[in-house]
């Protein structure tokens, strides 16, 4: 019922009566309504209560589920790791085998099959030091032939292959191994002398590609009290790393005193029997001993 909002009643007495009637009806309703309102109120209240309960239940269930999921993932992991570890085991085995094949290098002679034959690797060593590796790629055909290789040109590969390649490949490879290891050993000794014992040398070390001729002038004591000796080492056997001919001479006008002559002869023997760098190491140690004796 829309009332005019200007506060003035409109329409005379009958209208006024109508209004009053309506008012009474309303207030009567309001008297009745509290009950209804209360009923509605209580209904709503119970609804709220119900919903709250439901909410709490749901919250509790969510928590439970989360806990269950966590627990179940913990339980599930062992299963997955079982799968992974099978794969891992296979991978590890493969890596292992690969590593073993790669480690065969350390035996000195190893190889890998190729589409046309085999690629042989000769790894040289001297006194427990691993030195250079050389390769020969062989084509397995009749006749057996070398496809390409990394053997230095001054090693007599032609000669060795003419003698042995077609008749006895094992012998061919062992022969080559011998030559290469001996060359690597001689080269190692010459390099060691040049780098570690340069102080003992009075002049450059003369050498050649095969390192089978070494010529140098040296002093037993680097600080110049001893006489300089000239050494000439020949390695006529290319399969060994020790010299076959040694000549130690004295560079000077006067004759050597018997003591120095003894030293010269002993040096010759030393060069015959021991690798070069070991001979010089022993010179260095003797020098230290002398120093110690001077000090004490």
């Amino acid at each position, binding site marked *: 019922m829309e009332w005019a909002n200007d506060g003035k009643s409109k329409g005379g007495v009958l209208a006024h009566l109508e209004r009053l009637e309506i008012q009474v009806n309303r207030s009567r309703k309001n008297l009745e309504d509290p009950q209804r309102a209360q009923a509605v109120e209580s209904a709503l209240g119970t609804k709220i209560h119900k919903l709250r309960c439901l909410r709490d239940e749901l919250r509790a269930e969510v928590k439970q589920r989360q806990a269950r999921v966590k627990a179940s993932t913990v339980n599930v992991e062992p299963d997955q790791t079982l799968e992974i570890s099978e794969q891992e085991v296979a991978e590890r085995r493969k890596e292992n085998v690969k590593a073993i094949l790669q480690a065969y290098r350390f035996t000195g002679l190893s190889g890998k099959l190729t*589409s046309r034959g085999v690629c042989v690797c000769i790894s040289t060593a001297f006194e427990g030091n691993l030195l250079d590796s050389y390769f020969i790629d062989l084509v397995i055909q009749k006749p057996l032939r070398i496809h390409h290789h990394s053997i230095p040109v001054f090693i007599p590969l032609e000669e060795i292959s003419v003698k042995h390649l077609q008749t006895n490949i094992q012998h061919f490879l062992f022969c080559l191994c011998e030559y290469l290891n001996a060359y690597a050993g001689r080269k190692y000794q010459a390099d060691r002398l040049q780098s570690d014992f340069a102080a003992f040398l009075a002049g450059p070390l003369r050498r050649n*590609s095969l390192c089978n001729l070494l010529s140098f002038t040296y002093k037993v004591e680097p600080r110049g009290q001893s006489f300089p000796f000239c050494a000439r080492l020949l390695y006529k056997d290319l399969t060994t790393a020790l010299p076959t001919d040694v000549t130690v001479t004295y560079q000077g006008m006067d004759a050597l005193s018997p003591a120095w002559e003894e030293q010269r002869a002993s040096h010759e023997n030393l060069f015959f029997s021991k690798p070069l760098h070991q001979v010089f190491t022993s010179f260095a140690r003797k020098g230290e001993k002398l120093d110690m004796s001077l000090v004490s």
Partner: protein
Amino acid sequence: MDETLAEFIKRTILKIPMTEMMTVLKAWDFLSEKQLQTVNFRQRKEPLVHDLVLLCEEKRASVHDAALLDIIYTQFHRHQKVWDVFQMSKEPGEDIDLFDMEQFKSSFVKILRRALKNVTVSFRDAEENSVWIRIAWGTQYRKPNQYKPVYVVYYSQTPYVFTSCCQLKSNIPLLGQALTIASNHHKIVKMDLRSRYLDSLKAIVFKQYNQNFETHNTAMPLQERTLELDIHMDSRIIHENRIEKERVQRVTQEAFGDYPQPRLEFAQYKLETKFKSDFNGDILAERKEPLRCLIKFSSPHLLEALKALAPAGIADAPLSPLLTCIPNKGMNYFKIRDK
């Protein structure tokens, strides 16, 4: 120091590019640090060279010092010369070669001087137990001509010798004799191999050009790796004749390998063959004498160019073995006759 020597030193230093000047002078090791410090290297080349020549005069440079400078310049600019290759051989069953560099040098000089008094011989030791020899030739009555020397590069205990092309051809037999005797060999023969690229010649005769070897360290066998062509790179491109392309690639890889090719500038084929024709009654076909013709392939990098021919579709694969045998046989000069 006489005028001709001063002039020679001046011209040698003038050849050196400014960027290399310090490096070359230090390698020469004739002028001391102190002396070099007194020179202004920022001035223009001509006054710089003038100053350097004065220092050389002060220090009394000899012909041998100047020759050494010439060797060093040539070592830096080896591509400016064309190199020939000679192969020496020994009698079978000879003793082990105990090569002594000093003995070689003195023997070499002795043999040359015995035949020719007027000759300047200089040596410079180089890497891998090798030596560079410079020889300036004179005659019985004339002093050596320092402007036309011959260079020889020799790696000890190998049968190969590399020489820069000698204009005075009459001296070659003497040079060959000196090298053979001094290095304990019996015979020397000129190979049919020539190039500007000394390092490539060395790689070819020492058989060092293919250094790819299969080991257990490589991930995949070499052949498989190279067959993963560009063909598979872009999936939007469909290749027709894919099978043929792969065949060509495989055949090329078998012939040339998958390593960088040694560098040569040409291959020359001298043909003395009868003319072969499909037409009967062709005048040339009736000719009894063989035709002579010369075919020369030139390229900044001949072997790489030949390798690219079949994959580029310009030639059929496999290429003629006359082209693919070049590094293997160590030849780039061929004479072909009818069998």
